[in-house]
């Protein structure tokens, strides 16, 4: 039946069913990911859903597993994390693997800076972060530190604050989260957190 509808749409509206080069198709059953994370998982601040394109596969599977086991997202103040937790709790291991390879295949433009903060101040602070995340925030798997240069600044800010407030990284099983929680102590004010987020997002 749907085929018929599509054909009639096509005929009446001169539709071109173009195969869009490079664009990742959403695996069936995973359409709801794009409801919040957006087309090609480009992110949507209105929902608090970050851009996922550019995150490495190993990091994605770790986080999805953390959400699934309640290692991440169970803190009562982590609203969006809690939402992800209930979403991921229904996934099988195969599905998680499928999601990861799909995310890695998506193509979306790197987000622009959205916060107004002093990137220079952020540059100073970032020197400590660079030890694990790399000078260009490209990440280092050996250190368990993901590429964060493609993340939205508002999301980096939220997560930094979550680490600082113990909302993320408080679970004993979240080994890397705990490290970040400790590392986030270099940030002491809201302004510093913002400038750091802005600095990371504007890196190439």
């Amino acid at each position, binding site marked *: 039946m749907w085929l018929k509808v599509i054909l009639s749409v096509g005929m009446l509206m*001169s539709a*071109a069913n173009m195969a869009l080069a490079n664009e990742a198709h959403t695996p069936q059953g995973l359409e709801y990911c794009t409801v919040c994370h957006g087309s090609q998982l480009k992110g949507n601040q209105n929902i608090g859903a970050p851009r996922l394109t550019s995150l490495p596969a190993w990091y994605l599977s770790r986080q999805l597993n953390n959400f699934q086991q309640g290692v991440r997202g169970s803190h009562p103040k982590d*609203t969006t994390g809690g939402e992800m937790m209930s979403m991921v709790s*229904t996934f099988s291991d195969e599905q998680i693997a499928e999601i990861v390879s799909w995310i890695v295949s998506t193509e979306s433009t790197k987000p622009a800076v959205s916060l107004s903060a002093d990137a220079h101040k952020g540059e100073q602070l970032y020197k400590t972060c660079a030890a694990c995340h790399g000078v260009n925030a490209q990440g280092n798997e050996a250190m368990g530190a993901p590429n964060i240069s493609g993340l939205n600044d508002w999301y980096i800010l939220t997560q930094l604050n979550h680490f600082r407030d113990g909302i993320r990284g408080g679970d004993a099983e979240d080994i890397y989260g705990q490290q970040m929680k400790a590392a986030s102590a270099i940030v002491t004010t809201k302004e510093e957190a913002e400038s750091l987020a802005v600095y990371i997002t504007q890196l190439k």
Partner: protein
Amino acid sequence: MKNISRRQFLTYVGAVGGTSALLKTSIAMGLMKEDPFKGPVKVTPAPIKNKPSVLILGSGIAGLATAFELEQAGYDCTILEASFRAGGRNLTVRNGDKIDEMGHTQICNFDKQDNLFFNCGPARIPGHHKRTLHYCKALNVPLQIKANSSKMAYFQDDKFLGGKPKRIIEYHTDARGLMSELLWKSADSNTFNQMLNAEDVEKLMDFSKAFGDLTENGKYIGSERAGSITDRMLDYPQPHAPMELKALLDSRFWYGGLLGAELYDWCEPLMEPIGGMDAVVKGFLRHLKKPPVLNAQVKKIFNKANGVEVTYEQGGEFHTVTADYCFNNIPAYFMAGIENNFSSTYQAGLNSVKRGHLFKIAYQMKSRFWEDDGIYGGISYSADAISQIWYPSHDINAQKGILLGAYTWDPKHSAMFESLTPLERLKVGAMSGEKIHPGYSKYIENGISIPWARMNHQMGCGMRMNKDDFKTYFHLLQKPEGRHFMIGDQISHHSGWQEGALASSEQALGQFNHLVATNRT
């Protein structure tokens, strides 16, 4: 006009000119307010050859009404709907229906019976929602009265009367009595002497006596208006003891449910479609030439020189379609995740529309125990997170019934429910219900919960803009950007009501007529 009263004159005009003359004259004389709604916008008819095409994104009430009006005017409309079903927030569930909550898919397990359904979103229509009522009539959607308040229902607050539920009639009568007593006292103590002469003060005291059912010397000692603690048929009636003024002031009912039935949108009688609110959606679908394309999630919207290009994904395939015009019913806060070439101001306007958090629970009850308690419809109010319990006013005396067990607007309460599993939510709701109706839980056979801010393709209800954003962006979003129009209750002053969705559609079609006129010249 000498020697003839205004009323006589009108009777005279009525006799000569028929009722419409009477009506026009009444309006001219300022006796009646002119209603701004005069039926749907007359859409500029499409040219017979080369029918222009229109894409409608989303099949909410606004999308359906827009498609309906445009089809009537000869346009070729295609509705793209992301969900597996049409209707958006207008959702009624029955046996076997899916509640598409993110992370917690629920299946409605009500018994398979016509009277066992639940309106998860809209449930009531007031008499002044002219647009909604217009479509009910035009689409043959039969309506019935829905009791939105029952004075026999309860108010319950752990911090009031030791948590004992109070019948609303008793609360109302006592509140009126106690307030009238204060009024009587202040009138007696010359407070109003500046404003009123002695005769007026006398009248004011009489008024307060009548209003509050006071004794001859201005005391409120309870009133038979709230019933009797004896059998009123066979014994002398004896009013229940009135509550203390202090207790009244401490209770949380007066700034919540007390005025519920007195708000303009809840003023009685209200109406509901027989058999469920989705009768409105079905009505539109019956009258549309082309059914909505389902499971078609829009991913890109691009304004082009002479039309709009939309890409949607369906079953893992991208489809790109073009049309002469586009009406967008998608919740505006999703647009940042959908590729587009809108101006940054227009996109900023879309981002200013924020998600709202409404939440409902419904239980299938083994028997209609509330009817044995004298409640036939209406609402009990709770100071707990559940906030409200609604009793069905349809299918009275049936064996079972669907009871609304929670309806929360407070974002804090909604957030609490959202974070629970469906089963946990039902348990929390049952605990609060017990306080109003002891034994409540044992009647529960099954239940569902609908957190609108967690529903697939919706993620919110009761969209809102803050005051400043409203000033900056509302009028901008009412106008088309290129050939793209935003619609939905989000583009109205009345989000959270179908009337707002329909008003937005009407407004957009008015703009459409302008645009078509300019394109033709």
